[in-house]
């Protein structure tokens, strides 16, 4: 006998919106509670392959949203991007421990790795947080208004592909290297692609941040 599988349940898509080049936000019916920072498994078929996505909506909102980047050669994201309101998707219950910490923290994200932090923000959890967000293009700081309104200058955008006087030109790793020091008592939450997470972690360790203060969520 096998252990209970993480069951997929059918949900209706409420909206699918393209918010930047190749980036979509997909909202669907909510039939479970979750903690900001958790992920759900998504499939477009009942028995099809599933992938994990961070929830990108607030805990009290009446629906669940995920954020994703379309990978042309991928199986799932091109299919997800062609869905409309009323279409069905299959969703697992939420899981994961990349959760909000009330203490002072750096949130460091690249690309759609911003999703768990946006979920925390939308759930009212953002005290003593400094957010670094890395993107290649300026248009991809799609949540700028909400993050800036809440975090002010503690929302730091790092753009490697385009220049803007209000934005650090380079990657988040370049920004971290440019800082003379980093607070040792802060926690550092990293979310995004492995390359960013691994390189950032190396920098933090070089700067004597205890590695039990580094919490990583990797998109795979």
């Amino acid at each position, binding site marked *: *006998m*096998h*252990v209970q*599988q*993480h069951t997929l349940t059918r949900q209706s898509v409420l909206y699918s919106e393209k918010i930047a080049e190749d980036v979509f936000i997909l909202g669907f019916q909510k039939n479970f509670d979750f903690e900001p920072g958790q*992920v759900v*498994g998504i499939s477009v078929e009942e028995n099809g392959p*599933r992938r*994990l996505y961070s929830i990108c909506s607030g805990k009290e909102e009446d629906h669940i949203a995920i954020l994703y980047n379309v990978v042309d050669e991928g199986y799932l994201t091109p299919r997800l991007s062609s869905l409309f309101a009323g279409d069905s998707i299959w969703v697992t219950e939420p*899981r*994961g*421990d*990349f959760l909000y910490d009330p203490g002072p923290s750096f949130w460091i994200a690249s690309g759609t790795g911003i999703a768990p932090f946006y979920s925390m923000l939308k759930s009212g959890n953002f005290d003593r947080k400094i957010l670094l967000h890395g993107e290649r293009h300026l248009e991809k700081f799609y949540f700028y208004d909400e993050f800036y309104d809440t975090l002010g200058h503690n929302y730091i955008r790092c753009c490697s592909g385009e220049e803007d006087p209000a934005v650090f030109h380079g990657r988040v790793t370049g920004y971290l290297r440019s800082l003379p020091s980093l607070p040792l008592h802060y926690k550092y939450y990293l979310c995004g*692609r*492995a*390359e960013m*997470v*691994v390189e950032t*972690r*190396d920098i933090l*360790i*070089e700067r004597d941040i205890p*590695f*039990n203060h*580094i*919490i*990583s*969520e*990797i*998109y*795979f």
Partner: protein
Amino acid sequence: MESLFGKTLDELRDVTVILGLPSYTAKQIADWLYGKHVFSIDDMTNLSLSARKQLKENYKFGTEACSKVQTSIDGTKKYLFNTSVNKYIETAYIPDSDRHTVCVSTQVGCKMGCLFCMTGKQGFQGNLTAGEILNQLHSIEESSRITNIVYMGMGEPLDNLEPVLKSLEILTSEWGYAMSPRRITVSTIGLLPAMREFLEKSEAHLAVSLHSPFEEERKMLMPVQQVYPLNEVLQEIRSWDFGKQRRVSFEYIMFRGLNDTPEHVKELTKILSGIRCRINLIRFHPIPDTPLDTSSDETISAFKDALNDKGITTTIRASRGEDIYAACGLLSTKKLLKKS
């Protein structure tokens, strides 16, 4: 041009249909590709000349020679293969009396970001095809001597499940390499849905990277713990019949002062209770920018004894090929860093 090497018998049947060749040709091609050790379509001498011509016009054979090989004083060899994404993968050949083990890679780089892993520092460059996985066995000098295969090289095998399962099918089928699945071990950090599918579809042994029995500690070492916690992985393993024909083992890298204490022995005993398994203790080979250090030989030995006393079969994996950086990711990452 598409490769023949790495195709299953069903896929070769599709090839024969496309080219209008007799259906029995598929089995003949499979025999040349995997049963006989040839490297070109011209060598498939029981195929008609026109069949060979058609194959050559539409497909390449698909094997790739290694670009570099290093030999350790202990006989271990490290092969470096160039891949379609122009990055290197590594294959280790490890002789040990009458046992000849090959450790194959399944991805170029890795996405999993484990704190102790050199491959992770390359980032992720791409998945290997079944042909590229099998080429690591076919194109090494010791090909005919291989007795055991471990999927423990670069990459997380179960993050590239389909080609891995396909390569296992080719390795274990009568029309393929006809190897026993009991001589093959696939390693994983515990990607739960893929692990379940692997257990359903293959009979090869399973090795799980454990490295700490404590949740918070394992999270620091292995980000995957955030989404697929060890307790769920163990719960799944408990539901399968291990310990007879098929084995499950746990890999445990020893880090000084972190996961090598009596509390770890106690907790390991607790969480592995009821699972017929083996623990392999591994010396940590320090990598650049790591806060981790390797446990002393005395500590590793005492840890092994303590686990054995608790009834868990525990061995210390001999370090091999240290003079040629044979541990996973070391050689190709050095080459990559040098290049950049």
